[in-house]
């Protein structure tokens, strides 16, 4: 029997939402409480019933009966028994393993519900070495092992009901301004507030940590500041590069009542920790030699932080992973637009920083005008004749490089720049020689990894204030750089098939403005660059962006 509802519940526990159905928004509002958004292309959005999403739902007090009732109500077709079973099984696991404080401040107590779980935990080597059996249903663990134990338990399918309150950290009062220092009206958008609500909950056990996924340009920094305001505590923000550090600091000073004395920077250039400190992942993971210790990781562990914000959390490097596992008593939030890692370690981000608490389809924010409407084009050009034979003889890597650095791309860039005489344009690429060549040919400023930070700041500023209209940038500008007026991005080359890079680059032009944005990806036709380009576009395609293909006639 078929109902006229917008949802199809598949047997593999994915939920397909027909976004054109008149009741799709109503349905979505129910789904986000216990499902995870996987992709949101133009017509059919995919959610999934994952263990984590069900545990999160259980943790936030949603009853199993409510989940089953909502699924049944919205599903167009009868739901498979296996799905019911999975939901019941997963939801029932919540609360069977509880983490509480013990009399001894050096230890936590891990209580289990049954003998069977106890023996299962005792038999797992990875767990047994961290746990000491106290009595028939209770283990003790050292406080530093809290994150690792939770990680291992999630791996074997037992979510931990963590009833230990996060430590508040030293009080740092701060408030968001209604008018920014630069004089503009400022208000936190509804979805930004909802993100903070979703993360902090009632500030009780199980709340206060997690990941927030929002599109590029939608104001994740503001979400971070909203959380800072609510917790009013000593905060560390970790971000991707020095320019982003400065951007965070500027934003904080611009939109909060904090003073310059309260906001400090901890980077390779300057180490000045204050009540609110912004640092880079690089400085935390820096070490003078490969075998030696990480001298700056202490900032993370011994800084007495009440809140840690991991900006672009999908970039979290491995050593920070490890330390994050030990920082379970601290309020923490991961911010990202693209929770995809080419190394497939998204799950670890979830278990260490915290599960995804909020996600919103890109096209929804686009429709509401919170991010710019963007049109993506893939422009295909031929390889010059003289490169055809070398290309045919090259290795896969050489082929990709030859195709990426195709000299004919220069002509395309020229034409595209002419097409947009009034736009602010970023020309983004992977290979420095190619970028330098473009910069030289058009006499344009260029920012690469070797550009000193001061120079970078100067060029970014010039771009922001309009004195420079076109900027050539390498991958250093992929993340966390806010260039509000940029409306055109021309990608001349990229890091192979990186999906997040493509999305982040598009993100550079998504700040809402009074014009549409255009993203051009210039690709060599009939080369392996085409295949890598197709892979790069996957994430955006899943967010509802489609690429118009143009074939360039040389």
């Amino acid at each position, binding site marked *: 029997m*078929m109902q006229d509802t917008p949802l*199809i*519940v*598949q*047997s*593999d526990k*994915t939920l*397909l939402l027909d976004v054109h159905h008149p009741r799709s928004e109503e349905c979505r509002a129910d789904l986000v409480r216990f499902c995870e958004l996987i*992709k949101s*292309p*133009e*017509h*059919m959005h995919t959610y999934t019933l994952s263990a984590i999403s069900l545990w999160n739902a259980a943790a936030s007090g949603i009853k199993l009966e409510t989940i089953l009732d909502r699924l049944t109500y919205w599903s*167009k*077709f*009868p739901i*498979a028994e296996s799905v019911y079973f999975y939901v019941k099984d997963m939801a029932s696991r919540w609360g069977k393993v509880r983490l509480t404080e013990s009399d001894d401040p050096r230890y936590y107590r891990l209580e289990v519900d049954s003998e069977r779980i106890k023996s299962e935990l005792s038999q797992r080597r990875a767990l047994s070495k961290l746990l000491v059996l106290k009595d028939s249903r209770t283990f003790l663990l050292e406080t530093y092992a809290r994150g690792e134990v939770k990680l291992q338990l999630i791996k074997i399918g037992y979510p931990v009901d963590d009833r230990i309150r996060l430590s508040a950290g030293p009080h740092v009062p701060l408030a968001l301004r209604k008018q920014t220092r630069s004089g503009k009206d400022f208000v936190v958008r509804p979805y930004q507030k909802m993100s903070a609500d979703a993360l902090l909950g009632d500030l009780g056990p199980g709340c206060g940590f997690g990941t927030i996924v929002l599109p590029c340009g939608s104001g994740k920094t503001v979400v971070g500041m909203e959380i800072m305001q609510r917790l009013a505590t000593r905060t560390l923000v970790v971000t991707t590069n020095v320019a982003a550090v400065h951007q965070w600091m500027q934003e904080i000073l611009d939109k909060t009542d904090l003073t310059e004395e309260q906001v400090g920077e901890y980077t390779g250039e300057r180490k000045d920790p204050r009540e609110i400190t912004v640092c880079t992942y690089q400085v935390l993971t820096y070490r003078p030699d490969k075998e030696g210790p990480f001298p700056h990781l202490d900032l993370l562990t011994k800084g007495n932080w009440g809140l840690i914000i991991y900006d672009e959390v999908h970039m979290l490097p491995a050593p920070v992973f490890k330390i994050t596992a030990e920082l379970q008593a601290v309020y923490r939030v991961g911010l990202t637009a693209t929770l995809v890692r080419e190394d497939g370690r998204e799950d670890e981000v979830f278990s260490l920083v915290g599960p995804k608490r909020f996600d919103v389809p890109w096209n929804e924010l686009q429709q509401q005008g919170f991010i710019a409407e963007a049109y993506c084009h893939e422009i*295909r050009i031929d390889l010059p004749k003289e490169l055809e034979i070398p290309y045919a003889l090259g290795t896969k890597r050489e082929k990709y490089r030859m195709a990426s650095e195709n000299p004919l791309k220069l002509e395309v860039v020229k034409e595209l720049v002419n097409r947009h005489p009034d736009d602010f344009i970023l020309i983004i690429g992977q290979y420095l020689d190619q970028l330098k060549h473009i910069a030289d040919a058009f006499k344009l400023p260029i920012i690469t990894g070797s550009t000193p930070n001061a120079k970078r700041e100067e060029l970014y500023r010039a771009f922001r204030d309009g004195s420079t209209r076109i900027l050539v940038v390498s991958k250093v500008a992929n993340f966390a750089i806010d260039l509000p007026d940029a409306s055109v991005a021309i990608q001349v080359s990229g890091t192979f098939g990186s999906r997040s890079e493509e999305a982040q680059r598009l993100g550079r032009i998504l700040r809402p403005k009074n014009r549409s944005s255009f993203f051009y990806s210039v690709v060599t036709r*009939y080369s392996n660059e085409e295949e890598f380009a197709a892979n790069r576009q*996957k994430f955006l*395609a*899943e967010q*509802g*962006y*489609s*690429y*118009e*293909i143009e*074939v360039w006639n040389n």
Partner: protein
Amino acid sequence: MEQLNEQAQESFKTLISRYSEDNYFFLVRNYLGLVSTPFHKPQLTGRLCTFFCQKHIQENMLAMLDEMDLVILSLIQVTGSVRAEDVTRLLKSRWSYGTLLRRVSNLQQRMVLLNNNGYLVCNPLIEEQLSECTSLTPLFGEHAHACRNSPYCSTEFLRSFLSLIRKEGKIAFREEYQRHFPTFAPEPLEQLFNALGKALLSLCVLEGEKHVQINDQKASALLTLNDRQLLCLLLCHQLGLENMAFAFDLLAILGIIGSLDTNSLKLLIGSLAVKHHLESAPSLLSELSTWGVISLDEVWHVSALDTDHPHSGLLVDSDQTISYEGTCLPDDMLYRIAEIEVLDHQKRYRVTKESFVLALDSGLTFNEIEHYLHTNSRASSATTLLKQLSLLHERYRRIAIYDALILSCDERTANLLTNLPSLKEHVLSSLSPTIFLMRRDTEELWRQILVDSGQLLGSTKRHEHIEVKRPVENPLFTQMLENARTCAEPSLPPLVGSKPSAFLDKRLLEAIQTAKLTDEQRSDLEHRYHARMILTKEQIVAQVLNTVLEAGGFDYQGKVSLCRQASGKTNIALELQLTDQELVVQALEVAYTPQKEALLKAAVMPTMEVKIIPVSKIFLVRLVRIHLA
């Protein structure tokens, strides 16, 4: 209706007049009373017919039906005309052989069933009413429930299977296929995959050993079937049956019952084997389970065959997936141009470079693909995809690789090759006015045509011998396909019928008890009353029909006499109660030992094993009229 009645009466008269005199008069005397001499047999038959045409008589007959009667009658509704042995064999798990034999005989004496040359048929005068009483529940439906939405080998499954085979070139199951078919449990999926691969290879829908290819013509033909037809074809192919009506009936009844236990399933298969004159009932449980028609969960649950779920139209999303709900039209080509991602309520395919190239290689043109996507997708959702495909197609067209023979000739031969239709079809391409690429697989043919047209041909200059693969054919394929398409929907009893009342009119018994009769006549009538052969007071007349004779205990002579009476008569059986068992036998002869002890030589039914039984060992002998013919 009147015509139908006349036909039924004629049929009744014909069947009755074929009965032996003994049986005929037994029935006539029971229902019409005393028969005085001289008589006119056709007139008697006419009177008997008129007797049974009376509405109140028919109502009485029907009112007396009990549960066992309905089981037997329902079985006959399923099987059609059937031998008594088949009834006793099929229902042996429910009642003993003797009980069944007596009841079948009783139904004939009650004229509910008639004998047609050894086969039991319903009395044509009450056939319609009987069919209203019968149903599937008493036979198979103890556990009946609605069919389950379980996965099975549907045409949609076949499409996705073919899509996978086209991509992989192999039929061996791999674990990662599980993600494409989330509705299936791993083990049944593997079984289905292997069985389907094997069947399609055997039907030549798949060809090749190391690299399996799809014969698209045959695959398309197969996909014109609906789910039920496809399952019938696969079942029959597996069983080596050409007659698909058996499988059609089976699936139709299973679809009505929904779920049943193993015994009922075996009974159903056995009944249909009888109906369709199969030599033996095939052991179909594992086959039905392999194709997903049934699945075991305490009892067997039948999958709901989803034949009329409408197609929703293709939804081409921005992530290049193509999805739809429902069932494709027979000529749908999506499985040829895209790779399956998920087969569930929503079926999702993805067009990849490889799948698109394979589609073009298999003979589809870009125009066909373009037209298909344009006309079947919702709104303009396919525009971006089509743009990408057109670019791929342009690349595809740039190079063509032929497996061909090069024919270099003079202008005259070239003229023939260009203009002679019979030769032209063997030319793959013309490289220059006098150089042609010729088909390798038809080399013998075009050589012959050239020779016939007066050319002198040398041997082909080859470096090595290349064996040309000839297309393999399974002659059964076309026939089975046609049978599957043309099989008519069977007419079947409903799942639930009316409840039996097994009503006995006590007024008749009172009438017997108060009638002016001898003890023997009264006893005979009472016996016939309890055997439900007395339908009206007019039958209560002073006569003895000896419907049952029995002797037991110390009546040694009585027992011997009954044994002798039954000897050699095929329509009479003896029920024997021995000290430790009961037997139903056909008496062959009675012999004596030198000590004058009587020995019964008898064939034990139903195996007809011959035994010699001393009459002294028999506690009770009962004579039963088994065949009324």
